[in-house]
């Protein structure tokens, strides 16, 4: 496709996020937040129709539900998936979730609990939620709308809520082979932890972003993937699907300032 297409950074990130689920087959795809959810929905409608999704409440749907007020749209359910069954799914490992942690470290460990000292935190966040169980049991991807050293911290995250690849955290006899981190989609790039010894690695850079800038805004050393490339632009077909899935343009509020997908030259 060679035609010129206008798209926002959010739309570029939705397409990048959708790639997280490629090849997963029949697993529950849980995208938490506007961009991850649109990414999962796009994945199901394009390259990964086997994915299971819910209405973000308690029912399974085969047609991803558009975000926001539904007007005349009537969801059609294919099954029931209350929280208790989501836990069963988590423990069985048939899920791939994408969430936005408060902090992520060089080992892929994540924090959703609090920033600062645990006993008297500078900022109390949600709590660990399901992160300990999700992270050790099934595939996880992460979403970061504000790539910077506050998120990608220099040392360990302040409260390790989700497991990672730090050997010292694992004791003899504990199974670390059931966990998997797929990708990290940020407003600058797409990363993974597939470098040597599970080092964090940049797979693709968003248009106009340099590796040096990503490294500068990350608290730990990064590796550039051998095949480092530009994050693929959304196609016209993908943009049409995104518009259908997000009729109220909630994606416009997902990234601060709703910048264009191709960063203007300065």
């Amino acid at each position, binding site marked *: 496709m060679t035609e010129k297409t206008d798209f926002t950074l959010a739309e570029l990130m939705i397409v990048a996020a959708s790639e997280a689920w490629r090849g997963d087959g029949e697993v529950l795809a849980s995208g938490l937040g506007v961009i991850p959810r649109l990414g999962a929905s796009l994945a199901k409608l394009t390259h990964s129709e086997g994915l299971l999704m819910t209405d973000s409440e308690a029912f399974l749907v085969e047609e991803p539900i558009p975000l926001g*007020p539904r007007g005349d749209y009537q969801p059609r359910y294919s099954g029931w998936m209350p929280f208790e069954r989501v836990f069963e799914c988590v423990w069985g490992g048939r899920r791939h979730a994408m969430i936005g942690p408060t902090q992520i470290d060089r080992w892929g460990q994540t924090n959703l609990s609090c920033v600062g000292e*645990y006993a008297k935190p500078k900022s109390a966040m949600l709590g*660990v939620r399901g992160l300990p169980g999700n992270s050790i049991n099934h595939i996880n991807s992460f979403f970061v709308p504000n790539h910077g050293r506050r998120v990608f911290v220099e040392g360990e995250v302040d409260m390790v*809520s989700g497991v990672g690849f730090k050997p010292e955290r694992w004791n003899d006899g504990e199974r670390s082979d059931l966990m998997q981190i797929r990708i990290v989609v940020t407003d600058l790039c797409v990363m993974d932890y597939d470098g040597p010894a599970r080092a964090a690695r940049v797979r693709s850079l968003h248009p106009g972003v340099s590796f040096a800038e990503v490294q500068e805004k990350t608290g730990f050393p990064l590796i550039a993937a051998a095949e480092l490339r530009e994050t693929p632009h959304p196609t016209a077909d993908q943009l049409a699907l995104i518009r259908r899935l997000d009729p109220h343009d909630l994606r416009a509020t997902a990234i601060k300032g709703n910048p264009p997908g191709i960063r203007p030259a300065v």
Partner: protein
Amino acid sequence: MDKRMTTADVVGALRDGMTIGFGGWGPRRKPMAIVREILRSPVKDLTVVAYGGPEVGMLCAAGKVRKLVFGFATLDAIPLEPYYRKAREAGELTELMELDEGMFQWGLRAAGMRLPFLPTRCGLATDVVKLNPELRTIRSPYDDGEVLIAMPALKLDVALLHVNVADRLGNTLVTGPDPYFDHLFARAADQCYVSAERVEERLQLDAASARSNTFERYLVTGVVEAPFGAHPTSCPSDYGWDMSHFKRYAASAGEEGGWQAYVDEFVTPGEAAYQERNGGAARLGTLPLPVF
């Protein structure tokens, strides 16, 4: 047999230092009429066990929480529970047991099954094990030898739940799409008090409706008729959460004397005044269900 009682009867059965589990999930189907009655009472030093919503924030703000056993505290649409956050950041919550949502469920389940623990991988290799030194691990006695967390039973003195319908015998119905984990709270507790939107003489249901019954009446100590008793949290399929009330509540956490003002306006005057100040039955009954 008649298990009907009032919120005052329920709170009258509570004692200082008790471990109390609250049903529901975040801002969904919380027994708030009973919570408000607790706020009006002198009961204190509670161990609060919850998938936390505003009940956690309110009990923290009122200084009634000695220990919190939780996986999160949130109002969903307002992600960070304002008074939980305030208490945490002031260093006021000194006894915390922060657990993975699944470990939490396992703890309730173990208690309900009268087991000392249930094994799980959830929590391994995280700070959950480091910050809760009482959590022990166990090695599988079989050939795999896997090391797991032995999640201890979360035994409750009292469970407090809110449902859509109950009868005087203690039968209950949850008509919303998700029963959450109320049944496990009921099983984990020595006493379980259930408030309900409607309390009927005796449920007489068809087979399809009977499936909305999620736990047995022998688990239920008392039932309280409390219309809009989950407000400001949601009570699907009856009504949604009250965003404007949540905003007012959240804003109060940032105001000087904000909690006292909230208590004066919404708690002290009692449940009838509470409903009136939130628009009365006409408004409360039509709060739209949230769309996700």
